[in-house]
């Protein structure tokens, strides 16, 4: 597990962790660009692990409903990713818009976003 980033947004981090643990009794589920996940070699299971164990490091309110959050964390293979999501907390809608592999210590910097 990577070290905790310096600037962690606590409320957003708690929200995304609970989102990833909870059965959602609604259709306002999860949207994702399948092509980007394949390119980044990140699975949906990995996305839920990043939400469950990661940290929200940036948040900004959108003009439209919802906010844009950046989440950093590791997938099931301990690869670090930065995910950009649009979250509408009222409807529990989460939309993955950007997937980026974080630089690895061995210098492998495959940026698949």
């Amino acid at each position, binding site marked *: 597990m990577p070290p905790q980033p310096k600037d962690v947004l606590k409320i957003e981090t708690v929200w995304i962790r609970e*989102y*990833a*643990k*909870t*059965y*959602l*009794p*609604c*259709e*306002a*589920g*999860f*949207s*994702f*660009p*399948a*092509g*980007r*996940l*394949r390119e980044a070699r990140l*699975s*949906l*299971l*990995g*996305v*839920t*692990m990043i939400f*469950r*164990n990661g940290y929200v490091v940036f948040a900004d309110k*959108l003009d*439209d*409903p*919802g906010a844009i959050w950046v989440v950093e964390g590791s997938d*099931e293979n301990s690869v670090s990713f930065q995910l950009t999501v*649009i979250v*509408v907390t009222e*409807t*529990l*809608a989460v*939309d993955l*818009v950007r997937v980026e592999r974080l630089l690895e210590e061995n210098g492998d910097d495959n940026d698949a976003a």
Partner: protein
Amino acid sequence: MTMMQHDRGSNARVVQQYEVDTLGAPFKVTLWDCVSLGVDPKTGEEKVHIPDLVGLIKSVVRARVSHPRKLNGAELKFVRNALGVRANLLADFLDMTPEHLSRCEAGSKVMSTMSEKVFRLFAFLGTFFSDPEEILLRSFNKEEIDKKAKKPNEMRQKFAEQFLSMKIQSVFDAEEDELHFHFIRRKSKSSKPTKRQKMLSEDDDEWKEPEPMKACG
């Protein structure tokens, strides 16, 4: 109409069947009549929308551990990760060393039938909890389990049905009989929707394996 950034777009359509190749499962999973595909108006990329991803992953775990075919290393790892359980805690629970569990997950060792049965029981039970690791960290009494589990009656009924008579299948043709699970999300007629469910949708949190298609392979 102004398109919002999180909007799936007016061209989003529900597809009859969708094979979730991005799930991360080492077997096939197909979803019926519940996934919608659309195009992101900003990027032009195809967007996939799945309701209740967490519930789906837990249903996939339940389906796999209920299938009698012996779990291979990748499946053991998938199930553990899907439950969010640390390897050292699980190894301790299964009374094996973390190294042995790691080798089982890597496929260089085979987990004993007895350990696999205990693992399956734990995994099945764990899918009814928001934090399955909690089961490993402390002991529960019956009342606490009922309180913590999302659906205690269903959990008990399925638990008894699935595992009392299960024989793990160690001999099979993996090439010819690839495991393939199918799921459909549908409203159960018996349950009354909660106020929140009424507000949000007609859906009531049920991923099911359609009877005629249960666990091919």
